[in-house]
């Protein structure tokens, strides 16, 4: 199949011709920046500095804005979730309704009952031998 598209005909030739079509004849691309004198660089730096500072300043301001927005939004999240609580269940939790005295009494009762199991004995009588004897060899051999 022959390619009828005229753009595809001279692809290799185009890449070779490209530098020729450049107005500077490729000279600009081959020029090394190091060849420029310090006197020429100095004004350029002076011009670029304000732009960098501007960028940095903008960035900082942006971060500050983001942080302040986040700081404002963060406390709202729990507020929203806590405000959702009563909507889910209209009645508050039972523990909060109970008087403190009763809550303490129930907790103390649990402690006492835990300690009252009659089958549990953490102080068993010492398993020492009260029949230790140092006999004579004769009485042992008999």
């Amino acid at each position, binding site marked *: 199949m022959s390619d009828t598209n005229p753009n595809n005909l001279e692809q290799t030739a185009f890449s070779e011709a490209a530098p020729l079509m450049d107005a500077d004849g490729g000279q600009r691309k081959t020029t090394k920046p190091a060849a420029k004198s310090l006197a020429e660089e100095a004004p350029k730096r002076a011009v670029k500095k304000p732009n960098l500072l501007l960028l940095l300043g903008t960035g900082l301001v942006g971060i500050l804005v983001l942080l302040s927005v986040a700081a404002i939004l963060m406390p709202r999240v729990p507020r929203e979730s806590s405000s959702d609580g009563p909507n889910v269940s209209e009645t508050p939790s039972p523990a909060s309704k109970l008087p403190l005295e*009763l809550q303490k009494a129930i907790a103390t*009762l649990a402690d006492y009952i835990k300690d009252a199991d009659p089958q549990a004995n953490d102080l068993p009588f010492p398993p020492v031998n009260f029949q230790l004897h140092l006999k004579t060899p004769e009485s042992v051999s008999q």
Partner: protein
Amino acid sequence: MWRLGLVLSIVLLILAPGVKAQEVTPLPLPSLSDLKLQYRLSLDSYRAKEEQFSIAAQQYYTLKTLAAQEEAVRAAREVGLARVDTVLIYIQTLRTTLDTKNGIELSRKNTLQRKFQLLVETLKKHRARVELATNRLLIEQENNFMEDQQKDIEGVCYEALSLIKIGAIQAAWDQLDTTKDSLDAYISTAPISETARNEKQRGSDEISRSIDAIKLIITEALNAYDVGLENADNSLFRKVQEILGPAYAKLTQAQEFVRELAR
């Protein structure tokens, strides 16, 4: 010279009250957890020394030499001391438990503490004799003494264990009674419907019946304890445990009722 004397007098005057205060201030008693730890360490030491004694005695019976006898006597003295130390620390742990736990009836506790005091004095005298025992006959005399003491030691210790168990149920009963009063006060003022209030009141009445039943069981256990003092041993403790079993079941059930009613 007189200046030096004056300075020394002033220093003595300043320090004297401090020394006196140190003498008067009693040492803090060891806590129950410290005593339990000491007891475990003492029991471990006793076990190691009992093993050493067993080896030394066996060598003495086999070799029948004076050197082997000396070694066996030394090992017998060591195990004798470890045994009495273990029993003494165990008794101290029981006495501290009696003094620190709630619910133990005072007159019975005092009677038991007096028995313990006599027993401790007897065991300390035995310990002093074991320390001085340097021949087989003296060692054997103290071993026989300890064998004779076994019944008394076990008796007082099982009395204490029984009273501690009854006291623990009594303390839980007292707390259940207090909790029920608080619960009744809450039920009477809680912002609930009359139907719910009546329902909770019926639940509270059920707890009252449990309280009465547990009280009867405690009385039964105390009677068994008093009867068992005549010939106290492990069987007394088992009897008390058996009697208190239903009281503990009722306590745990009442605790569940309290939790339900407090919802």
